[in-house]
């Protein structure tokens, strides 16, 4: 037994969860898939007073698509996102990225919303949501509010979620037909956190571009200079040259700042070159 002693309570509905949090206070934590939280507790990196188990809130599970958008319920497990025909067909960026999220046994428990709400700067799902311009649906005592991904990720493990608020789902507009996408990451070992990672979305005729790097800063970050260069019709080499311009890059145990800048640029160059080849072949 490695965790501190905490109270365990189970919520059956979202209002139930919010009420339990209000009763327990700010030292309470919501328990979703637990694949980061339980490890953190076993390390005693966190010592909550209460765990509010939301895993049985059925309304938070599942993927729903309508004509314009796809909504991924916060408690949809990574394995179910990976198996979803809608995600595979409509949001192939997420389908490609999800195989890089840890290992099969972890994907069987870990949840999409848990990963987004935790906002680990090295995680794939927050970067995908940012690249796809997702909108977070957040439940709180005062009702539901919506926050776009651009305003959601604020720092390492820091988001726009206020204490007690619960991420209930993420809505993503269907990319325009003919949009191109790319995903790549560099990790020392399969299943490990990336040393640098890239999510890329380019609208038809380069009308728009979203270039997101993860694991190089304190949060998933948009590469605005590279986006502008893509839209302006710059070459692969020119875009890659400005890959991390304007981004505050952080080093970690695996790679220093200069190395991360280099990796990010290489990933962008490779993916853009691959897309160019794909387009030329088509």
């Amino acid at each position, binding site marked *: *037994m490695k*965790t501190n002693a905490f109270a365990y309570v189970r919520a059956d509905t979202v209002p139930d969860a919010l009420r339990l949090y209000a009763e327990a206070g700010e030292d309470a934590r919501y*328990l979703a898939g637990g*694949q980061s939280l339980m490890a953190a507790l*076993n390390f005693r990196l966190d010592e909550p007073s209460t765990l509010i*188990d939301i895993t049985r809130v059925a309304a938070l599970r599942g993927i729903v698509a309508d004509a314009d958008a796809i909504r991924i319920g916060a408690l949809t497990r990574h394995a179910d996102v990976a198996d979803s025909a809608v995600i595979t067909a409509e949001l192939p960026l997420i389908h490609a990225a999800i195989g890089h999220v840890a*290992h099969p*046994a972890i994907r069987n428990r870990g949840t999409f919303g848990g990963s987004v709400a935790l906002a680990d700067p090295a995680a794939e799902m927050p970067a995908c949501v940012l690249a796809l311009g997702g909108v977070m649906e957040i439940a709180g005592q005062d009702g539901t509010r919506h926050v776009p991904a651009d305003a959601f990720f604020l720092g390492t493990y820091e988001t726009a979620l206020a204490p007690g608020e619960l991420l209930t789902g993420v809505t993503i507009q269907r990319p325009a037909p003919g949009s191109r996408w790319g995903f790549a990451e560099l990790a020392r070992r399969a299943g490990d956190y990336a040393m640098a990672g890239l999510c890329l979305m380019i609208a038809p005729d380069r009308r728009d571009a979203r270039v997101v790097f993860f694991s190089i800063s304190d949060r998933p970050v948009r590469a605005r200079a590279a986006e502008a260069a893509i839209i302006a019709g710059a070459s692969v080499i020119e875009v890659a040259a400005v890959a991390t311009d304007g981004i505050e890059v952080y080093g970690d145990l695996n790679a220093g700042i200069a190395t991360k800048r280099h990796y990010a640029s290489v990933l962008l160059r490779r993916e853009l070159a691959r897309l160019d080849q794909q387009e030329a072949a088509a």
Partner: protein
Amino acid sequence: MKVTMTVNGATCSGEVEGRTLLVSFLRDTLHLTGTHVGCDTSQCGACVVHVNGRAVKSCTMLAAEAEGATVATIEGMADADGTLSPLQQAFQDHHGLQCGFCTPGMVMSAAALLAENPKPTEHEVRHYLEGNICRCTGYHNIVKAVLAASGQDLPAVAAE
């Protein structure tokens, strides 16, 4: 609090704390010590069991979360008379274990793989077992054992 779940086909109940991990419940309360604890942080895979048919790491799941679930552990793999399952037999035949510490998790992960993909390629086996670490580094024979258990021709897919 009291938890009740089905473990290897039998209904099991016990008193747990909120913080009791599923692996602790299995080992300390039910005395099913085949499931091992390696890292307590989801990295090594020694604690893999099946919950409702899916492989999970029992060191990062609370016993309370498994209330009402169907759990399968390594103890349920062999027949009651001790006859090994084909997968376990393949681990023995192909020397898929050395010290044996990782073996319960390896077998449970491999069983989950074969349930969803009965004829995996060598690459698929290696990819699926990413979350199971063998510190004897006996991976080649573990992969061979899983491929043999899948009924495939080993020379055609043998580890390099």
